[in-house]
């Protein structure tokens, strides 16, 4: 019941979808099947967590999709099949993620450019720059060690699931920490926050940095899962935002929990799986997606005023 309170109705939706999936595909109920689902969902869930930090502070991050692509393409070119290069490059990727996030944050807070525009511009710059660098198409190859995280298992459990658990746990812990509460407060009432001594700009910037970090991790997982690809990140930014909003997090900031945002991502992934399972391929898949998103958010808008307890 507590879950329902902190996570909101999204868990119900998620449960229903999972049940439908299981109904059509019993394999889903076996550990292997379910782990496969988690593995597949991991990147989006992590992205959603990152996006949550930005949205709850009242901003947007449209650059994560292209950032994921950058991660994979850069990794492929720098590693170029050389196992030894794996760890340095991993470190570099994380650094890139943090740096891009920092740039987004500073431009948005210090130059007061609406984050929608900041990150839209960043999206163009990133996707352009990376292919400018590799001459149009990905080159080089990823090392086995690099791919371990997205592809291999540790015992029965996929690495990506472990990473997901770690990231998810970290995100929740972070939101319970001082920083998390300051972040939400800033998103809720910027003025009150700053009159309480919150460094609003710094806090928001940090949110972008976290989003960048999440994109880096997601990139590493996706690259590991499926190898080099030029369009690995395509449309992920909208999926992430959609997931967060599905989780009942209000655009404009100040409301919603990171757990719910991640649940939203699982829901979205489950929706994809389900539609594909029931053969609503490509075509109507999107239509259904659109309807469900609008419906969910509309329901949220109507529901929220009735909520009497805050999320933690």
């Amino acid at each position, binding site marked *: 019941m507590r879950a329902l309170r902190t996570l909101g109705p999204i868990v119900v939706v998620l449960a229903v979808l999972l049940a439908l999936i299981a109904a059509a595909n019993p394999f889903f109920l076996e550990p292997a099947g379910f782990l496969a689902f988690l593995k597949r969902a991991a990147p989006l869930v992590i992205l959603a967590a990152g996006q949550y930090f930005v949205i709850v502070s*009242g*901003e*947007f991050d449209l650059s994560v999709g292209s950032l994921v692509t950058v991660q994979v393409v850069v990794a492929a070119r720098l590693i170029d099949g050389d196992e030894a290069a794996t760890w340095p490059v991993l470190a570099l990727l994380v650094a890139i993620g943090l740096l891009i996030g920092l740039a987004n944050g500073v*431009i948005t807070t210090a*130059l*007061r*450019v*609406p*984050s*929608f*525009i*900041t990150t*839209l*511009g*960043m*999206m*163009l*710059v990133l*996707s*352009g*720059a*990376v*292919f*400018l660098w590799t001459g*149009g198409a990905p080159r080089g190859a990823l090392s086995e060690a690099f791919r371990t995280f997205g592809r291999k298992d540790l015992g029965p459990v996929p690495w990506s699931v472990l990473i997901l658990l770690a990231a998810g746990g970290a995100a929740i812990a972070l939101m319970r920490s001082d920083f998390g509460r300051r972040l939400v407060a800033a998103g809720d009432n910027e003025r009150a926050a700053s009159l309480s001594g919150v460094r609003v700009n710094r806090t928001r910037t940090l949110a972008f940095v976290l989003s960048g970090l999440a994109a880096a991790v997601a990139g590493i997982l996706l690259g590991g899962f499926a190898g080099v690809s030029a369009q690995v990140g395509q449309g992920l930014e*909208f999926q992430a*935002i*959609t997931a967060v*909003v599905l989780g009942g997090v*209000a*655009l*404009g*900031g*100040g*409301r919603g929990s990171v757990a719910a945002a991640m649940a939203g991502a699982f829901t979205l992934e489950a929706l994809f799986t389900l539609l594909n399972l029931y053969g609503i391929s*490509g*075509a*109507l*898949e*999107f*239509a*259904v*997606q*659109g*309807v469900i*998103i*609008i419906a969910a*958010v*509309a329901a949220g*808008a*109507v529901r929220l*005023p009735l909520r009497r307890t805050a999320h933690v």
Partner: protein
Amino acid sequence: MSDHADSAVARRAAAPEPAVPPPGGPAPEDGQRRARDGAGNGGGRRWAGIGPTQVIYLALLGVMAAGWVLVAIDGGDFLTLETVVGIQQRSAALGIVAVGQTLAILAGSLDLSVAYVISLTSLVAAEIMAGRDGGILPALAAALAVSALIGLVNGLVITRLQVHAFIATLGTALIVKGVLDHLYDGPAGRVPESFQRLGYDRLGPVPVSALLWAGVAAAAWFLLRRTRLGYRIYAVGGDAEVARLSGVRTGRVIVATHVLCSVCAGIAGLLLASRLGAGAPTVGTDGGYDLESIAAVVLGGTALAGGRGGVGGTVGGVLLLAVLDSVFNQLEVNAFAKDVVRGVVIVAAVAVYARRTSRRRSR
């Protein structure tokens, strides 16, 4: 746009509370600050001459000059008839969409569904025409009707269901996309020669498509300057609460802007159909008209939060992007470098506006 949403939410939250403070809530120090502001505004006055619109056109001239020089160095000739025509042809479709987008953004909303509306209308039109001249009029009617309908849905979802414009229009976008994928695989329909003239003919150096764009822009300008709706779009985007207290039906205004925005996308779809000779399910998304139109609008100095800016700036913004494109074409810069520059230009421009605005205004 986030702050727009914020205030909206805040108001909804405030509604059930007792003792609603007079909008804004009296706070003496605010008054004082404003007083100082009014006084210390000589600077603002001096700047008054140059608004964002002028800035964008100055930038446009700058880019043209720079382009001319660069191309000359490259041994080319920048302002040939072909390039001038090319610039207009390239900007016409985006321009029309951006004009519609301007209306939505001025009202404090935005529309992410335009790209798919374009594709859909291009198909609807081309299929109804099916190469027959007789089909043109019904095609126009149907195309505009379809787009208007989508705009209506957008508007109602935003105002009635209180869904944030970002999500609402993203949702309708997905729905339209689904329908497109479901019904079409590849280009369909055929437009008659006579209709293709819209896309290809030109009077001297001015393509008909550019005239169409100019027409749409002029109409929008007129709407904003001379009609009640126009005034109220600014009011709603500027401060929905003030507008409401002045008896403006804010919901209707937002719905209206979304209908108009979609119709503009529909017109762009028609134009593209005439260019392509057929309808294409990907023409809108390939063109990236959704985000690019928004980019063009803010590049033109219209505030993403709404209430400030205008069509003039948007036209400038679109032209700026088109000229950049053309320069890149001349210099045969590859597509990726273009994106980098575009991204930087957009962010830089908005940063400049932000500086200027903050110098002028209290908040």
